[in-house]
């Protein structure tokens, strides 16, 4: 394709097809579309087998020309995977089992009646079926970065074009100067979604102007989503890879670069495969390569795979890694805008940041700036995980409160447990306590309460999680992932881990807590890169909001959540014990014996635990059907 007109022909031929999947009443060659999630979550829970079965049934029952099967990216509600949606009705089948397929095919795809008992319960309201957008999980969401995820086939460039794909690139190349593009991004107020929150337009402006006579510049995409528990970048790459390619090409035009690199985690095989397909298709369609849209602008993109180093998510470390070295960060300045990849001016943006760019170009800076809070515009994708009902991916306008995200969209805490904390920002962020539940989420508010946006992982914890143990968990991660280049991070985090370990083993003192806190401030102030500078955050924030838990470990030698094994003791409540002896059979240490005491109303004598022999494995608790064993 060399002109916008050619692009529009492709778009118009597919627009009806993809529109059927968003508002139902559009013209399609097919009677129905069956969308099956092909993201990592649903693939792991069996969606490939569902597609196989559908194909088999279609062939046998002559549906191949009537119903189209589309393997899409992530729908977001991973908790209910594998997920299948049938359009035009928008029927949402959740936790689909292969055995249910023949009935769905017969009754719904042939008979026209959705099989209610297989639908996501919340969409079934008596005789009516509710639209997905009216369910609590989707109602408050607003999809910008994820707009194509779960709608299009990510392995087909034409479906992307059918959803106005590459229109923004066409507009930029044919009607805008690079300065216009940068100004639009600046005006939109878009800030980096990878965690730092640096204004994206500012980054681009610096890279355009700071070295006026640079012979080479680079555009990089940070897809090294190492923050455990965050998977929004992966979902964008799996569900809508072309949006990243289009946005990087726009960025290349804006700063004057000819080459782009996507640095993606090797742990994301599906994302890597779809990116490779997308790059190939974009080259064939003329959206990458020489003289794009017949202009004199040329741009190409290569993939580089990470190899499992968290620090490579830091911008200078990422570039060092692309250069083929140990991924160690380097001091800034010089900033990448001046001397980045291969010592040339470079911009690096995160996947989600790029996913917003084409929409900003098409709908205007004002449209984007109308969403969000004063200093944080647009939307943010969060990966909800941990102790929450609706695990999955949600995109909400900035300024939504944590309460709305956790209680309304996330459906609250399962099993009647009490909410304790929400962790944002991964190993660089902090734990947020319930008293901050109603603060509107944006970059500055989260920093104000001792956490950070990070890439958007949001892990919910309940009363069974010990905050000292969680802090230790994150420090273990940082110790493991510290690259070792600078002393405060290499040695400091190790010392922090040791103190935390001591506290969880009941050997800590009040003085240790003070030492720990002091160490935090030193490491924050003196580390070379973001990894070390933020590594103390999980400790500082838990000390701030859950200090009493630390004190309980140190002074009372108790773990209130019942997690730290060295501080637990197991006891049998004799009046609840029926004397069945199940626990004694399970006990690997033979620490449980029978007493002489028969509880009122029981026939056999109660059991008891010899604390000197007990190894605190918890096997007895799991075996007791009468809840007669407690740990405290």
């Amino acid at each position, binding site marked *: 394709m060399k002109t916008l007109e050619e692009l529009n022909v492709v778009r118009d031929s597919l627009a009806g097809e993809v529109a059927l999947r968003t508002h139902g009443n559009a013209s399609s060659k097919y009677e129905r579309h069956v969308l099956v999630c092909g993201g990592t979550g649903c693939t792991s829970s069996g969606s490939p087998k569902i597609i196989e079965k559908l194909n088999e049934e279609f062939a046998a029952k002559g549906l191949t020309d009537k119903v189209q099967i589309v393997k899409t990216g992530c729908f977001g509600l991973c908790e209910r995977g594998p997920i299948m949606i049938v359009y035009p009705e928008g029927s949402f089948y959740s936790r689909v089992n292969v055995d249910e397929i023949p009935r769905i095919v017969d009754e719904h795809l042939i008979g026209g009646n959705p099989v209610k008992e297989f639908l996501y319960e919340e969409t079934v309201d008596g005789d009516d079926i509710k639209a997905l957008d009216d369910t609590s999980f989707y109602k408050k969401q607003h999809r910008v970065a994820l707009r194509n995820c779960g709608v299009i086939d990510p392995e087909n460039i034409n479906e992307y074009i059918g959803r106005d794909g590459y229109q923004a690139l066409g507009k930029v190349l044919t009607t805008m100067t690079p300065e216009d593009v940068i100004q639009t991004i600046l005006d939109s107020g878009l800030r980096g979604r990878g965690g730092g929150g640096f204004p994206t337009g500012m980054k681009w402006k610096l890279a355009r102007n700071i070295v006026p006579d640079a012979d080479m510049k680079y555009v990089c995409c940070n897809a090294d989503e190492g923050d455990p528990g965050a998977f929004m970048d992966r979902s964008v790459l799996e569900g809508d890879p072309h949006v990243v390619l289009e946005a990087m090409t726009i960025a290349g035009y804006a700063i004057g670069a000819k080459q782009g690199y996507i640095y993606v985690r090797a742990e*994301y095989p599906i994302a890597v495969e779809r990116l490779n397909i997308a790059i190939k298709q974009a080259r064939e369609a003329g959206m990458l390569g020489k003289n794009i849209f017949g202009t004199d602008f040329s741009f190409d993109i290569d993939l580089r795979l990470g190899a499992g180093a968290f620090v490579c998510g830091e911008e200078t470390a990422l570039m060092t890694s692309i250069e083929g070295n140990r991924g160690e960060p380097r001091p800034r300045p010089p900033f990448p805008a001046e001397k980045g990849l291969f010592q040339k001016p470079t911009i690096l943006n995160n996947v989600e940041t790029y996913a917003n760019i084409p929409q900003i170009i098409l709908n205007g800076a004002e449209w984007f700036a109308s969403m969000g809070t004063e200093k944080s515009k647009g939307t943010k994708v969060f990966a909800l995980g941990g*102790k929450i009902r609706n*695990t999955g991916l949600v995109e909400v306008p900035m300024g939504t409160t944590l309460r709305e995200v956790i209680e309304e969209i996330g459906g609250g805490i399962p099993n009647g447990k009490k909410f304790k904390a929400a962790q944002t920002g991964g190993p660089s962020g902090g734990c947020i306590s319930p008293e901050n539940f109603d603060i509107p989420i944006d970059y500055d508010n989260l920093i104000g309460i001792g956490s950070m946006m990070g890439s958007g992982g949001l892990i919910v914890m309940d009363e069974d999680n010990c905050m000292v143990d969680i802090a230790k968990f994150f420090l273990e991660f940082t110790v493991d992932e510290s690259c070792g280049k600078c002393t405060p991070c290499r040695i400091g985090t190790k010392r922090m881990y040791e103190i935390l370990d001591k506290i969880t083993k009941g050997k800590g003192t009040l003085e240790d807590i003070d030492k720990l806190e002091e160490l935090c401030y030193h490491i924050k102030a003196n580390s070379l890169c973001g990894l070390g500078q933020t590594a103390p955050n999980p400790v500082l924030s838990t000390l701030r909001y859950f200090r009493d838990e630390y004190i309980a470990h140190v002074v009372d030698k108790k773990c209130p959540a019942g997690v730290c094994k060295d501080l637990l003791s197991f006891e049998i409540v004799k009046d609840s014990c029926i004397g069945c002896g199940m626990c004694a059979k399970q006990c690997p240490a033979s620490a449980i014996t029978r007493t002489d005491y028969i509880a009122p109303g029981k026939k056999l004598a109660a059991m008891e635990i010899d604390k000197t022999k007990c190894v605190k494995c918890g096997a007895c608790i799991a075996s007791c059907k009468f809840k007669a064993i407690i740990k405290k």
Partner: protein
Amino acid sequence: MNSAKSTVPFKGTPEQEAQLLSVIAEKKDTQGALMPILQKAQEIYGYLPIEVQKIISNNTGIPLEKIYGVVTFYAQFSLYPKGEYTISVCLGTACYVKGSGDIYDKLQEKLGIAGGECTPDGKFSLDACRCIGACGLAPVLTVNEDVYGRLTVDDVDKIIAKYA
């Protein structure tokens, strides 16, 4: 715990070497070629012993100590062979708060090896990994390409038995 690490001699074949040499020839003139070459080399041999690193060094001119530095920096490069089945337990935050730490402990106990090691019969190796992104299924482990989710400690025996 016994470790099988140093006991396996290098058994590279001429076919593997020819394959590696063609990868090197194809990539060595691109900027920052070392990482992609190492990734391919690990695909070919399954791991990156010093013998393989020497072949790369001799054919790219990159000093061996630099190659060794890169190999040891990244968690995905392995100096030792992996077992027939690699069990990876996700210790990402979402899995950890749902108890994957206990599952990892149980596997170490069951297999008699520590994380990063391989059983003496070459059958299983055990790793902890950081978030494979299937947080909706937490806690999760993978055995080669197979993903097991929504696990409890009691599932460990069944899973091992499937491959033993």
